[in-house]
């Protein structure tokens, strides 16, 4: 049995994912999501896939985040109340 990505990384990933989902401030959520992607990239590299890690870092943490931010800039920053 190998312990490729530390079980820690996986745990933090789950925590970050939950945080990104429940955060009501979309900008905060996006930043958390960016961190999540970066950590995911680290996990990929740990799993011996530097190519994917590289791409995920550039796309997930980079471009996707920028696109999310642009969207938030052009729409609303906060989630509306469910009522």
């Amino acid at each position, binding site marked *: 049995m190998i312990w490729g990505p530390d079980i820690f990384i996986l745990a933090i990933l789950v925590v970050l994912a939950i945080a990104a989902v429940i955060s009501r401030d979309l900008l905060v959520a996006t930043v958390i999501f960016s961190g999540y992607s970066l950590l995911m990239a680290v996990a990929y590299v740990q799993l011996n896939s530097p*190519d994917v890690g590289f791409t995920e870092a550039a796309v997930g943490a980079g*471009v996707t985040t920028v696109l999310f931010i*642009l969207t938030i800039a*052009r729409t609303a920053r906060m989630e509306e109340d469910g009522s």
Partner: protein
Amino acid sequence: MSESLFGEDVIVRTIARLVAPFIQLFGLYVLMHGHVSPGGGFQAGVIIASSFILLALALGLPESKERFKKTIRLPMESSGPLIFALIGVTCILAGGYYLQYGIAFLFPPAVVSAILISAVEIGIGITVLAMIVTIFYAMAGD
């Protein structure tokens, strides 16, 4: 987003201007070394695109667009798949299967193969670069 995200901060503007070429250079490196180390056309395209995104964030959209005009982007967008497809068609014409790089065409197959693979990588890079920047500009608005 016509204004820069950071206002008229001189330091940010200068650093962005300085850093952008290096990012682009790094992108080119990734592109060229795709066949020996992680990376390739797609990653290179994203990296170079991010330099323009950085410029747009630091200097404002108009200046960024000034450096990467629509008239240049438009042919670049199509070039990747077009190069891909045309190389494939060339392979067919040379008597192979679609995308069979190892064909004898002016040079020995191994050389042709290397050239064509590089061409494909460059094509991918160009398209990804142009497309991501275009998407970014379109979503950033005026």
